[in-house]
Structure formats: structure tokens, C-alpha cells
């Protein structure tokens, strides 16, 4: 039994203007206009190199038990950083986990929404 078993980890993306507004102001409480992408604890543990790189290079504070937002204008740089980490990663499991982050970043870009990391 891990301390984080059954604890929810999500990415949130605003699906429309209302969703983006709700996401910015209220986080995950108004879900009707938000796209929710679940992420496994193991994926987070496999992705610390990426998390540290995002925190250091984009002045973020991504962490478990906290929420953090990657703004729209920062998402392309986040994607570039994530792709760079993925290219260097040789471990198959870690590559799969980092790819889930990349999917979330790309989805946020496609909606022109910030990416709320709700852990």
C-alpha cells in the first residue's frame, strides 16, 4: 500500500472560453467545461526529470499535493522541453509516462487553454 494509492491526479484543460475562465479562477471545481485527463502516480514518479526541468526552466512549482498551471504562452516551450527529455530517455516505462505529459501539453495547445496540473 502506497501513501498515494487512490489519491487522484489529473490534468485539466478548458474546453471553451467558460472552461478556461473556470480553470483560471476556480481550478477543478466547475468541471462541466473542463477536459479531465487522469494520470497515474507511477507516471509522475517516472517523470521527475521532466517535472524538475519544467520547474527550473519555466519557474513553475509542479509537485504532488499541489496544483500548478502552465500558461498558454508557455506551453510551446513546455512541449519543447518535454520532447527534449523524451529524446534522451532510454527507459521504456519512463518514455511512456513522459509521453502522457506530452499528450496533455499538446491537448492544451490544441484547445488554446492553460494546462492545470491538479495533483
Amino acid at each position, binding site marked *: 500500500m*502506497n*501513501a*498515494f494509492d*487512490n*489519491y*487522484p491526479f489529473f490534468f485539466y484543460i478548458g474546453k471553451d472560453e467558460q472552461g478556461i475562465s473556470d480553470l*483560471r*479562477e*476556480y*481550478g477543478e*471545481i*466547475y468541471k462541466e467545461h473542463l477536459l479531465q485527463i487522469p494520470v497515474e502516480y507511477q507516471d509522475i*514518479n517516472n517523470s*521527475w526529470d521532466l517535472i*524538475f526541468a519544467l*520547474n527550473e526552466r519555466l519557474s513553475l*512549482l509542479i*509537485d*504532488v*499535493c*499541489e*496544483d500548478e498551471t502552465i500558461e498558454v504562452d508557455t506551453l510551446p516551450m513546455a512541449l519543447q522541453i518535454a520532447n527534449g527529455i523524451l529524446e534522451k530517455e532510454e527507459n521504456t516505462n519512463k518514455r511512456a509516462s513522459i509521453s502522457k505529459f506530452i499528450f496533455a501539453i499538446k491537448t492544451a495547445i490544441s484547445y488554446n487553454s492553460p494546462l492545470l496540473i491538479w495533483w
Partner: protein
Amino acid sequence: MDAKTGYSTLVKGSKNATATNDDLNKKISAGHNRKEMYSANWTSVNINTIVEQFTPKATPEVVNGKVVYTSSDGRYKVFADIGGGYLRIYDMKKRCYVDAFGNDVRNYTDSIGKQHGRSSSEQKVLTHFRILKREEMKK
């Protein structure tokens, strides 16, 4: 041993481990930075009181830069940040962080009975608690 002593011992051990564990060092630094940036409006709590109220007799675990206490029925988790010296209380049943009384703070009811959502920043202030230092607990 009370929760404060256990927490302080685990914090000390984790900080000593950062000399040879760069990942842990970064996680602890992030908690410290979060406290520096946001703690001005957080209220302070006695960790002994919080652990006794929500997760009595829990054995703490150190995971990802946090000291984690889980209640015997699994409903509550207390996450005490090692680098930041603060804690949060998560209610697995309500699926949200709660205040020091176990209340869901995501919404509030105004004087005429209408319900409103609290902003994300307001929620954070109400669900982050600075852990009192031992000397402060005596006051």
C-alpha cells in the same frame, strides 16, 4: 513520541539525505520555495492536534518530499511538506483538501443563502497550514 517529534526527526533525516540524493534535494527546495512565495496568508497549526484529529496513531511515511499520515479507515491523509514546513489535509471521501476542521472549502454560502465557488487562490489559503515550531507550540 508525539507527531511533532516524529515529523521533525523525518525532516532532519531527509535533509541529511539530500547530500547524496539530488532528486530529493529538488523536491525539498520546491516546498521551501512554495512556502516563501505563498505562506504569508496561511494560518498556523499544531501538527500534534491535526494528526490526532484526522489520522490518530498513524505511522508516518516519507514519500516524494512529504511526510504522509493516513487514517486507519483511509479517509484522511495529512501531507506534511518537508522543505516547506507546512501541511495539507486531504479527504478521500469528499475528494478535496479540507480546512483544519475537515470542511470542504470549495464553496461557501452567503448571507442570503446563495452558494458561491471560492477562487483557487482562496482555497489554497484555506487548505495550507504552516506547522508550528516546537517553541511556538508552548505559547
